[in-house]
């Protein structure tokens, strides 16, 4: 029996898509510049079906890509031409929510925000909050070690995953981790998080939940320059405060957000949002210190949210900024490089210079607390060569981040988009180690083929041996 016939025996009609029109929605993810036509899409509803599909792929040597809602901005869930797409959205049950143990056991297709929604009646929540959290799935968050605005204080997805059930690319099912916050032996589940689907597909995920902070103090400060806002972040850190989030938007991003959601932001060159969170007595004391620091930072205007509605209004503009930029330009590329916090000013100045040099506008929204930039490179795909120039400019920004001691990606992952830049950040031996691990777990190279690892890495030892 051929591969498709065997798939048909496994999946009833309606849960196996193989016709052109059915496949079209799966040809790309949120990085729409790339498209690939898969051979078929399956929609499993139980983990046994995922395991069977992976085993079938292994037997027939067919590459596969698992995906959730397809919100990857780095092309991480782009199909392999002629391969299988395993769409996990129907595996969206929260299998167990144990408030006493502070854990949730979920299927990979559960939407991030849904976990917090279900945990809310118990005063608990799931901390990692990528901007895509109303749509993106936990399985995808695990693959990309997703972040959000609160990573400085709470860390990324990896810290919040306690256990995983995984099917390896050869079809073996393995449980990694446990239900305790602590473990013994190698942190294999921690290692799996962030490997972008290259080492297998998650079938079940155990998440740690946290008590929802009791009090918030949300401050919005306007500055006359981006540099002044950046300096304010340094001053906050130097004062010994540990805010839950610190976000900066530049003029272009502010204008876009205003046009889109009318958040009521003051007009300024830059806006800084600082949010403190914790027990109410502690937040009260922290707020006094923050007020002093912000006053000394030369803010032109300061607003403090007096109610939950005002707090939400401040965040609404920030969260809408990405999509709002779409109003300013027909197309844009979003990057998410990271720089050490103390070099934010330098990075932004250089981005400004590059923007001039390439003649393309760049809007900046970023997680200032952890140095995670989100430069949005605006372009018009209908104009000749503008996409290429935008990509070149985005590439220059990535190189800049690595040069300053940062990273190619804070939360979007390498995917297909940034794999060519991996040698900028990693030495050939680092990349070889990744390849050796990939090969050991996936000898046929089927799982999310073509992502993360750049082509043509030369073994430096072999090279030395031959010459």
């Amino acid at each position, binding site marked *: 029996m051929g591969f498709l016939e065997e798939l048909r025996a496994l999946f009833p009609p309606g849960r196996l898509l193989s016709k052109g029109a059915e496949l079209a929605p799966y040809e790309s993810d949120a990085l729409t510049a790339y498209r690939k036509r898969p051979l078929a899409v399956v929609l499993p509803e139980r983990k046994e079906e995922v395991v069977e599909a992976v085993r079938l792929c292994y037997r027939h040597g067919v590459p596969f890509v698992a995906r959730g809602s397809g919100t990857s901005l780095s092309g991480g869930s782009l199909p392999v031409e002629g391969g299988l797409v395993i769409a996990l959205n129907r595996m969206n049950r929260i299998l167990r929510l144990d408030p006493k143990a502070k854990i949730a056991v979920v299927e990979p297709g559960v939407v991030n925000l849904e976990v917090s929604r279900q945990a809310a009646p118990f005063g608990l929540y799931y901390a990692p909050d990528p901007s895509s959290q109303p749509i993106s799935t936990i399985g995808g968050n695990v693959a990309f070690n997703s972040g959000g605005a609160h990573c400085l204080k709470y860390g990324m997805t990896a810290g919040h995953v306690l256990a995983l059930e995984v099917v390896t690319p050869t079809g073996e099912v393995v449980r990694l981790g*446990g239900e*305790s*916050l602590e473990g013994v032996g190698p942190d294999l589940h921690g290692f799996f998080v962030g490997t972008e689907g290259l080492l297998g597909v998650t079938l079940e995920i155990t998440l740690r939940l946290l*008590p929802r902070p009791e009090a918030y103090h949300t401050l919005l400060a306007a500055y006359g320059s981006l540099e002044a806002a950046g300096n304010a972040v340094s001053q906050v850190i130097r004062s010994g405060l540990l805010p839950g989030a610190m976000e900066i938007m530049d003029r272009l991003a502010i204008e876009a957000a205003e046009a889109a959601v009318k958040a009521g932001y003051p007009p300024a060159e830059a806006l800084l949002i600082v949010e403190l969170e914790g027990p109410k007595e502690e937040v009260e*004391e922290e707020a006094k210190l923050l007020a002093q620091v912000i006053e000394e930072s030369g803010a032109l205007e300061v607003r403090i949210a007096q109610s939950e509605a005002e707090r939400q209004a401040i965040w609404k503009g920030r969260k809408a900024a990405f999509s709002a930029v779409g109003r300013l330009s027909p197309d844009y590329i979003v990057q998410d490089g990271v720089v050490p916090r103390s070099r934010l000013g330098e990075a932004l100045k250089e981005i400004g210079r590059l923007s001039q040099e390439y003649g393309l506008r760049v809007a900046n929204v970023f997680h200032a607390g952890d140095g995670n930039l989100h430069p949005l490179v605006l372009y018009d795909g209908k104009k000749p060569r503008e996409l290429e120039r935008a990509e070149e400019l985005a590439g220059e920004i990535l190189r800049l981040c690595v040069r300053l001691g*940062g*990273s190619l990606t804070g939360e979007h992952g390498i995917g297909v988009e940034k794999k060519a830049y991996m040698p900028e950040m990693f030495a050939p031996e680092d990349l070889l180690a990744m390849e050796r*691990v990939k090969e*050991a777990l996936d000898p046929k190279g089927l799982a999310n083929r073509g992502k993360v690892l750049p082509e043509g890495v030369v073994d430096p030892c072999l090279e030395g041996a031959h010459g």
Partner: protein
Amino acid sequence: MAEVRPTSLLEVQEAVRLHPRLRPKGAGTKPALSAPREGEVVLDLSGLRGLLQYEPEEFVFTAYAGTPVKEVEEVLRAHGQYLPFHPPLAGRGATLGGTVAAGLSGPMRERFGGLRDFLLGVRFVDGEGRVVRGGGQVVKNAAGFPFHRLMVGSLGAFGVMVELSFKVFPSPRATQTLRLTYGNLAEALAAMERLRVLPLDLLALDLIPPATLEIRLGGFPESLGKRLKRLQEILQKEGEVLAEDEAHWEGVRNLRFLEEAPIWVKVPSTPAWVPKLEDLPLGPRRYLAGGELLYAGMEAKGLASLRQAGIPHLVLKGAGDALFPHPPEAFFRQLKLALDPRSRFPLG
């Protein structure tokens, strides 16, 4: 006993290429993990020490793996910062590398998380003598395979750690400890379970059998008194307040309560498992971080009872195989083959 003591990355590579079987060792504070087995050469990493980079404003430092935790903490303290996962045995000389290899966190892990939440990057020498880097030196990073997380609890199975980068936080400005003793274990457990789910930002929440809770608060001195009072109201109990509590918690993290026991064991736990663990013939012990982590001292029969009950654990001191159970073959074996194909390192 054969021993090599490299003082540079190159010497580590050389040692790895030269010796078929190696047992990495820091300060030897977890002898069950660092004592050589038959045919192994000890790779003493205490010569690879010192801070390589520390910028207080970044909340990040990078140091050689053989650096004593205490040495790092002194530098951090001068800038009002600390390692929130509170590495154990620091007072006895524990090194950063040994702490990561053993995968150990201390009582203050309750507030912000454990070792795995604070390790940002690693440079290690794999089983072929090649230098590999994973992670980085920024607090947010999703690039490449996270080899640094693979090192946590690895017992050195995949390579010799040479450099490590950690996230740090500003230290609490003041601390206070509340000690409460209950009538029996069930009452103490009930109080602990209640505190676990409240947004109180406790630095530490420990259960000392049979029925004592120790709760550490940290923050602005102006708010501490109010928070302590609220805690007493929630628990409807005054308890005993230790205002000068630093020395007490140093004793706890250095596992002083295990001093007399011949065997020291780390057991991952949860509050629900506490009654079951309490039925075993264990010696002196303390549940850290709201019941998520047990450090227990015992004699041979205690260890045997843990094995018999199938409870995962790691032996830090005393006889026997250190790790129970062995990591899951289907994933571990392939990783081991990829990074240490000649099985030079532990867990072969």
